[in-house]
């Protein structure tokens, strides 16, 4: 195998952002969330990602604010480190090496210099038992510090989010299973409270989450049956009491007290944020229909902002429990990609099924979810065990004018419900509008569908397990009131075999349908032209060659075969024994990508159907089978001259691994370019930085400077040259302090003593110098002057050079002043 140094597989976006609770900064301007191996900083007003804090080498498993510095956060990761970040500048300040994978982190103001982390039981890393340990962070100036001072606090805790600090950090409460454990730091003692398993009457008492009241001795716990218990008087082992609140019908996923303790927030699978009033528990406010199930709730330190994480990889920002102000949505990856990956020809976005009943449009270039298209258009009922409609197929026509979707609902004991929907692109609203709904288009599952690429007709072919394939045509009913709609044009079959895949040739003149072991080729007038067969093994994938290779038809079968038929001779051109799990054709070139699974790994071959040697191959791409893949066209063509990288010039290959990671192939040159562009986009101001702001903000600053020059002038003396001299000249070349002092004082006097006529020249001088773009040149000048005076000798004339210098400067100023004034007069 040839070593391809340049091409490598990279992760491309789409990380989970709902893995752990988000952190809202003290000023509520930023939102921090763990996203894969990095921490992302979002602006809470503009929803834009401001910083991506990279440094961890494994999954980030928790973030907490640093109570002693409101501009810093701690993050912990499964790589065994706790890192301290400055999130406003995106700088890594310190790394504390713990040495064990960390699953969550807790911190309290009252325990200075200590963080509490959840690590596996020390002796056995693979075990399912976890413990909460206190880590004393060593005070050291180094970047990387080993923190070895661990002391166990609680044994047997759950790995995520089930512990909370009580009033003034006096105790910590943790839940696991049917047990609530409270550890009192003063007494160094823990109390345990148990509940009965209560399996009868459907009550499941297991704890799910815990939150402590910030001002009073009260612990709120959430349970699997939807109850919330408020525990009081728990510092006695026996005389504890609890009261129960019940609204949720599913498990309570998360609980959070507001900072003042007036309200308790809870959330669960119902996707309703419930706000309980702490003293009047029967009063509650609801915020329904937030999206997926609520997994975490975070509250800003001033209590004005709530932030809910949802199971559909979304963060919702809520202002004081009334209004949803912003939504940060990541790539939704459910249990699997039911629809194939497709590229929207208009927006070049990756399209796949996202939220239940929706298609998501995900921009690959910007790593951002563009929008969700509601396909099912039904109220989603958040309840477990309910059969919901799911989008299972989606296809675009070549120009992006039509979108076809198939939704499916399997129901126990009753037949399958299938809807085929056709959506027309509406130029005015810039989105897809429902045109035709076909209920029960087939009697069984639709296995594949594709649009005809020919420009004359708009045709869709669906194939189904019921043994038929159907062609749907756009019929124009201009004589009646309803506009164009779709209707079935042809129903075809072949010996009652079940079809599995279909493919149109690039010009739309041929349709190939794979019926188990037989490939049938049909003409547009629905004549069966020929059948091709290469038993054994059912046909899994079919692909027509493109451009110069359009006379070839490729097929893969389940019995480890990749066949290539020549359509002119109707005979087999070649075949190789490889187990191809996925075959993809590049729409812009002749290239084909075949993913083969071999001994638990996936290999990739990129080849042209007409050539015997593959263009590129990579063994052991990733573990497991590659589930889905797609060629996405590039914005700009790459000009790579290496032969093995040329297949990446026009389009890029994206694929989903078994663990639902979106990966792609990238070359060195491309990465360099990406890096450059990201640097260009980097902005110093951290608020509301969008590319739009970049354009407009600069413009506005310039405008302000033009319209309001006085405001700037008053501030300018601070940057006077004397101070610059003082600050930037190396200490060993500076003259004595007494000499400098008078100069320094004089420089300060300018602003107050001399009138405004004096001030302006200073400014003018500054400006003119800046126009020369050489602040440094001036500095060098001053340095030379200083050096000169030093050469003259410090003892000779102490006062004189300063005087002459001042005079010189005066003269220069006058000169500058006169000149600018004259020029301004001339301009007038």
């Amino acid at each position, binding site marked *: 195998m040839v070593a391809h140094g340049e091409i490598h597989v990279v992760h491309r976006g789409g990380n989970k952002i709902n893995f752990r609770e988000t952190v809202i900064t003290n000023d509520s301007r930023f939102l921090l969330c763990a996203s894969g191996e990095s921490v992302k900083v979002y602006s809470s007003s503009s929803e834009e990602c401001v910083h991506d804090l990279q440094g961890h080498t494994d999954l980030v498993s928790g973030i907490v604010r640093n109570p002693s510095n409101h501009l810093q956060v701690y993050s912990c990761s499964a790589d065994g480190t706790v890192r301290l970040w400055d999130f406003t500048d995106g700088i890594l300040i310190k790394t504390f090496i713990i040495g064990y994978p960390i699953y969550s982190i807790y911190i309290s103001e009252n325990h200075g210099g200590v963080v509490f982390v959840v690590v596996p039981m020390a002796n056995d890393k693979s075990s399912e038992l976890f413990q909460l340990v206190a880590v004393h962070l060593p005070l050291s100036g180094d970047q990387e510090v080993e923190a070895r001072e661990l002391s166990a606090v609680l044994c047997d805790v759950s790995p995520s989010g089930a512990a909370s600090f009580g009033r003034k950090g006096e105790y910590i409460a943790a839940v696991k299973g049917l047990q609530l454990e409270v550890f009192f730091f003063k007494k160094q003692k823990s109390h345990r409270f148990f509940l009965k398993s209560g399996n009868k009457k459907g009550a499941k008492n297991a704890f799910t989450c815990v939150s402590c009241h910030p001002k009073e001795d009260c612990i709120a716990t959430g349970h699997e049956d939807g109850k919330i218990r408020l525990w009081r008087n728990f510092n006695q082992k026996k005389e504890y009491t609890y009261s129960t609140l019940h609204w949720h019908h599913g498990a309570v996923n998360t609980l959070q007290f507001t900072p003042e303790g007036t309200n308790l927030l809870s959330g669960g699978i119902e996707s309703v944020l419930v706000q309980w009033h702490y003293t009047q528990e029967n009063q509650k406010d609801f*915020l*329904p*229909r*937030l*999206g997926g199930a609520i997994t975490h709730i975070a509250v800003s330190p001033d209590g004005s902002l709530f932030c809910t994480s949802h199971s559909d990889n979304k963060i919702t920002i809520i202002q004081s429990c009334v209004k*949803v102000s912003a939504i940060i949505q990541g790539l939704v990856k459910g249990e699997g990609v039911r629809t194939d990956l497709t590229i929207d020809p208009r927006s070049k976005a990756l399209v796949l099924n996202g939220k239940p009943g929706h298609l998501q449009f995900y921009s690959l270039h910007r790593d951002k979810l563009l929008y969700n298209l*509601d396909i099912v*258009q*039904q*109220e989603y*009922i958040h*309840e477990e*065990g*309910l*059969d919901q409609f799911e989008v299972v197929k989606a296809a675009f026509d070549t120009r992006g004018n039509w979108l076809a979707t198939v939704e499916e*609902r399997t129901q126990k004991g*009753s*037949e399958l419900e299938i809807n085929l929907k056709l959506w027309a692109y509406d130029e005015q609203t810039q989105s897809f509008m429902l045109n035709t*709904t076909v*209920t029960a288009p087939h009697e069984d599952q639709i296995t594949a569908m594709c649009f005809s690429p020919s420009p004359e007709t708009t045709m869709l072919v669906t194939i189904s397990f019921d043994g038929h394939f159907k062609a749907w045509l756009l019929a124009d009913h201009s*004589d*009646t*009131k309803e506009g164009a709609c779709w209707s079935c044009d042809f129903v075809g079959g072949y010996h009652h075999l079940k079809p599995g895949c279909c493919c149109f040739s690039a010009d739309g003149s041929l349709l190939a349908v794979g019926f188990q072991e037989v490939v049938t080729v049909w003409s547009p007038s629905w004549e*069966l*032209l*020929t*059948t*091709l*067969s290469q038993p054994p093994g059912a046909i899994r994938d079919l692909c027509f060659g493109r451009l110069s290779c359009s006379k070839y038809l490729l097929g893969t079968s389940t019995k480890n075969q990749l066949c290539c038929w020549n359509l002119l001779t*109707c*005979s087999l051109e070649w075949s190789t024994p490889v187990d191809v799990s996925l075959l993809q054709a590049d729409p812009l070139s002749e290239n084909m990508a075949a993913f083969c699974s071999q001994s638990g790994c996936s290999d990739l071959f990129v080849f042209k159907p007409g050539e015997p040697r593959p263009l590129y191959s990579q063994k052991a791409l990733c573990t497991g089978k590659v589930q889905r893949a797609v060629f996405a066209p590039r914005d700009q063509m790459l000009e790579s001259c290496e032969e093995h990288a040329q297949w990446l010039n026009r389009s890029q290959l994206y694929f989903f691994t078994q663990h639902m990671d979106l990966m792609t192939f990238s070359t060195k040159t491309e990465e360099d370019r990406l890096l450059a562009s990201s640097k260009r986009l980097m902005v110093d101001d951290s608020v509301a930085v969008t590319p739009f702001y970049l354009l407009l903000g600069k413009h506005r600053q310039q405008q302000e400077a033009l319209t309001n020059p006085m405001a700037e002038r008053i501030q300018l003396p601070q940057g006077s040259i004397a101070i610059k001299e003082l600050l930037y000249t190396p200490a060993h070349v500076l003259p004595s302090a007494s000499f400098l002092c008078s100069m320094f004082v004089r420089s300060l006097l300018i602003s107050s003593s001399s009138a405004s006529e004096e001030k302006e020249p200073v400014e003018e001088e500054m400006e003119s110098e800046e126009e020369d773009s050489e602040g440094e040149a001036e500095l060098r000048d001053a340095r030379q002057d200083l050096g000169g005076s030093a050469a003259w000798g410090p003892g000779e004339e102490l006062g004189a050079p300063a005087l002459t210098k001042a005079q010189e400067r005066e003269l220069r100023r006058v000169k500058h002043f006169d000149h600018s004034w004259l020029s301004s007069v001339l301009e007038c």
Partner: protein
Amino acid sequence: MASFKSTKIPIYPKLGEKVTPDTLYWKNYKAPVQIKEFGAVTSIDFSSLAPHNYAVTASTRIHIYGPFSTEPVKTFTRFKDTAYSGKFRSDGQLLVAGCEDSMVRLFDVSGKVALRVFKGHTKGVHVTDFTSDCYHILTGSDDYTCRLWDIPNSTELTSYKEHTDYIRCGITSKLNRDIFITGSYDHTLRVFDARVEKSVMTMDHSQPVESVLLYPSEGLLVSAGGRYVKVWDLLKGGQPLVSLKNHHKTVTCLSLSSNGQRLLSASLDRHVKIYNTTNYKVVHNFDYAASILSLALAPDDESIVVGMTNGVLSIKHRKSPEEKREMAGKQRMQPVYRIFVKGRNYVPKKDDFLVSKPVKSHLAKYDKQLKKFNISKALDTQLRQISCTILIPEITVAVMKELDRRGTLKNALAGRDEQNLSQLLNFLIGNVVDPRFTPVLVTATEMILDIYQAVVGQSSVVDRQLVRLQELVEREVDYQQDLLEVLGMLDTLFAASLPRKEVPCPGSSR
């Protein structure tokens, strides 16, 4: 926070005819005015003179009606036996009619007594008509002859004895005073020229001819007989052009619409069919209560007059444009719309600050309940709106489907008292066999039977309904079985009729 998505009511394709310009045109008539005559109405003829009165021949009388009167303007009663074929002259002054007593009478429209009586036929005269020069009369009789009479002299000019059966229809040319066409029960149509002794053209209709019609251009001839309507090209020597078979009983009468673009045929099967004369496709269809014997259209299609065997004369008048406007005006008067529109068309000025009002989404009653998860109430509110349930069962079915999707249909159906349950069963009986709703309603029915099987026998109302439901379902099952049998038969027929074609297969040739 997304808003509540209302329940989707599926739109089912409308069965029946599509809305075309033709249906709009022919539906634009008012409800028919019905007048009872003394016997079967055999003939209707419109006067070409301005008020367009029409003569209706029924039994022994001829009534003349004004365009909008339900009472006859004039009546001719001097017939000894059944009168036939009352016809106006083209100037509207004279009217001719045949009679079963073989005499042909000519009336002045303003007078009462016959001006002339033509005697000569030996049997009843069913056909009378004026020639285009207004001085002659054509008659056709059951004595197999057709004759031409001179009005001023009241003498017989010629007699043609070519038909071998009753002559029951005939028409004179409007362009040539000498040419006329007769149709007879001997299955033939004959074109006569008064200047020649014999018929000039003969066409075989192959059914007893009931009615003939000439196109305004007189190049085409239409004949009706038996179940067929046939069109002949006279300029090509009587070559048959089309044969239409759209009625399932004898076609009795033909008529052309005023612009000559549509052909109407009336039949004993109680239908009037309207054909497009360019492609001879049926574009519209009228239904009547009894077998139709005669049909006429007023000039400009202002009214359609149909006479039936039971003696009922049905008159449909076209809706006048004023009425249409009135209808539209009524809609505009509705205050709801005015309030709705209020301020919507206001264009804000340049410096105005726009305060947008949150859009209040309107939810249907059942949706409001569904939003609150009140499942039983959602179903109840829908079932209680009886008019809605009967007229638009789609909504109720959609609510049931939504409940089923939420997995709570069983809960919603349970816990009902007798009245509620019978309401529900009534709905099921009405709709369970509708193929559009069967998949949903069958599950609901099964659930109801499961839930209420313990209380069967306690209420007579419910029991009766259950029995009805059972009968309904049994009948439906029988139908389905029959249909499947038919389908199987058809499949074999189709399979046998398809030619066998070999598909080229490279594998087999090798």
